[in-house]
């Protein structure tokens, strides 16, 4: 039982809702139940949407899947594209792919990491951090940032643009392209595109480093706020490379406890389903995963930048590694659990992504012509990748007619479900209890959610139930659709 998840009784409690949660990707809402003294009795972050991907992918030819699943999420389509491709590499017997294929995919992925982190920080979250959590609603957006800090807004827009251009030249389109295919990629890099990206990459590294310094300055100049806001402790979970390095594309699973002790390491992700259980709760379409062996109450964890930067042993690029060390020093020997430190960690990852892009662009393998591998056909594959928001798991079974018979997806934001709920409850305790609820106070709750950069669209791929009857009428009153419980 988690404190504040469910009120002991709901009579005479007042409901306050934040609906929709804004400046996040996707559809969510928060409900609060308060008693007569404005004491918070229940707080829930609900994911209110559903899609049904796992079901409607069944019966489709496997080679359609990497293109279809991107439509789970328009912010991180590349993650789904690549996680699906990695799973289906195994189905076509491509146990390893060619150097050109792997490097093209990596370039695409690190381009996405850069654009997604830039978008999240500059376009979505920076207004809270630059203007204050209860600043004027009219200013608290990217337009307000552009007016007050034009240089910051411009850098954010151009960082994101660069990441999107990396995606375009590796996959054909900025959003929902088709670069990876089961077994490899469908194109190598065009030398002209390489030259175009090389022109700008140094600047991107400089601006990314400035962004790290900006988040670090915000954090360390107001530790009372940044270290304490929404603070809770949890385990950390992510992929790490075989040598312990931070890696977004491939690795094995590692779990650390809240004190920093490694609990599990070197876990082959093909066995993820032996490791994790997903609990269903009646009030959200998003499930609640936990490490089965540790149980529901102890086994939940954080994923994403704050987990990754502290779960790895080092970052394999020089500037980001310097920043990681400074970040770790901030924990004074312990782990940093503060939700707002997600921003700082995220910008360190953005810097790393920019450095890796530069390194990859110097590699002539990207221009190679050996694009595809294959081998003995298999019936099943699991693909895992570190998406911008955390560990992303795709699992497929395919029959001998090439049709998908089973799909299971655990998306990044789902892993953070319990963690986000805990952060929101902690903020409610710290800021809302006993006070008159204002718009600015409610934005504090959203600030905590935004720190995790949730992708609520991704998280809504499951289907939900209709509890009642609903009728949909068109403009002239004609019945379009009707659904009855049952």
């Amino acid at each position, binding site marked *: 039982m988690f404190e504040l998840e469910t009120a002991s009784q709901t009579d005479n409690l007042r409901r306050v809702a934040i609906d929709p949660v804004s400046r996040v*990707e996707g559809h969510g809402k928060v409900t609060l139940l308060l008693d007569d003294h404005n004491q918070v009795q229940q707080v829930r972050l609900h994911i209110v949407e559903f899609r049904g991907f796992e079901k409607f992918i069944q019966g489709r030819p496997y080679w359609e899947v990497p293109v279809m699943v991107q439509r789970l999420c328009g912010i991180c389509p590349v993650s789904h594209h690549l996680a699906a491709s990695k799973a289906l590499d195994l189905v076509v017997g491509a146990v390893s792919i060619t150097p050109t294929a792997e490097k093209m995919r990596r370039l695409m992925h690190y381009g996405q990491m850069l654009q997604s982190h830039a978008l999240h920080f500059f376009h979505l979250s920076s207004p809270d951090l630059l203007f204050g959590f209860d600043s004027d609603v009219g200013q608290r957006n990217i337009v307000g940032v552009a007016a007050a800090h034009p240089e910051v807004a*411009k850098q954010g827009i151009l960082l994101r643009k660069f990441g999107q251009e990396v995606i375009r030249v590796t996959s054909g389109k900025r959003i929902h392209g088709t670069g990876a295919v089961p077994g490899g990629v469908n194109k190598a890099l065009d030398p002209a595109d390489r030259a175009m990206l090389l022109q700008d990459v140094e600047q991107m590294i400089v601006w990314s480093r400035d962004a790290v310094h900006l988040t670090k300055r915000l954090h360390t100049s107001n530790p009372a706020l940044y270290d304490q806001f929404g603070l809770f402790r949890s385990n950390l979970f992510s992929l790490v490379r075989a040598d312990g390095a931070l890696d977004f594309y491939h690795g094995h699973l590692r779990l650390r406890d809240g004190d920093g002790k490694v609990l599990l390491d070197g876990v082959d992700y093909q066995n993820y389903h032996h490791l994790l259980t*997903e609990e269903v709760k009646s009030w959200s*379409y998003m499930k609640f995963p936990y490490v089965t062996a540790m149980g529901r109450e102890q086994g939940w964890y954080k994923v994403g930048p704050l987990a990754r930067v502290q779960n790895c042993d080092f970052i394999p690029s020089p500037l980001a590694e310097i920043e990681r060390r400074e970040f770790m020093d901030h924990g004074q020997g312990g782990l940093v659990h503060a939700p707002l430190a997600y921003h700082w960690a995220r910008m360190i990852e953005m810097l790393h992504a920019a450095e890796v892009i530069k390194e990859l662009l110097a590699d002539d393998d990207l221009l190679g012509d050996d694009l595809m591998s294959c081998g003995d056909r298999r019936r099943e594959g699991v693909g895992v990748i570190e998406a911008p928001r955390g560990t992303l798991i795709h699992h497929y079974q395919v029959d001998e007619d090439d049709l998908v018979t089973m799909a299971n997806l655990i998306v990044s934001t789902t892993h953070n479900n319990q963690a986000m709920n805990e952060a929101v409850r902690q903020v409610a305790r710290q800021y809302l209890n006993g006070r008159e609820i204002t718009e600015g106070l409610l934005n504090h709750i959203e600030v905590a959610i935004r720190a995790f950069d949730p992708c609520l*669209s991704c998280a809504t791929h499951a289907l939900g139930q209709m509890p009642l009857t609903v009728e*949909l009428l068109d403009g002239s009153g004609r019945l379009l659709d009707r659904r009855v419980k049952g």
Partner: protein
Amino acid sequence: MIVSGRKLRVATTSLAGCFGCHMSFLDIDEHLLELVELVEFDRSPLTDIKHCGPCDIGIIEGGVCNAENVHVLREFRKHCKILIALGACAVTGGLPAQRNHLDVGQCLQEVYHTCIGVESLPGGQVPNDPELPLLLDKVHPIHEVVRVDYFIPGCPPSGEAIWKFLTDLIAGHTPRLSHPILRFD
């Protein structure tokens, strides 16, 4: 549509979409800084305005998959002089409409009860809290629910297409998109 003396007010929302159309909107890159000289934003995932007020232009991403979507869409139609269906999902239902040939009840059972690694609710129930909006049996394109003034195809339409469309509209021309920026993929 030239309105003298004030910025045009624009609202945007995502219904049953993936946010890709909103991302493509941001793919206008530096033009965003020009755009905010001409328009101001009302409700949008980019602002903290939670309900749409009177607007000149409403942009809808995504089709209609639940009662909440219907409600938001009607609010937009009521308040926006011009309503635009942006992208395949709003125009046709798009990829989410792939579920239209399936029985929702069976899908629920699979996702929340029988699939790998799930600890289901007692009695194999599925999420059914009153806070969760009622699902429709099918995903609908938005023009089946409200009148729509413009349709922009593409999954998503490119940033270039969106910029061309909006600048035409703002300048008072009939927006025209043609090859190569008019695409359906």
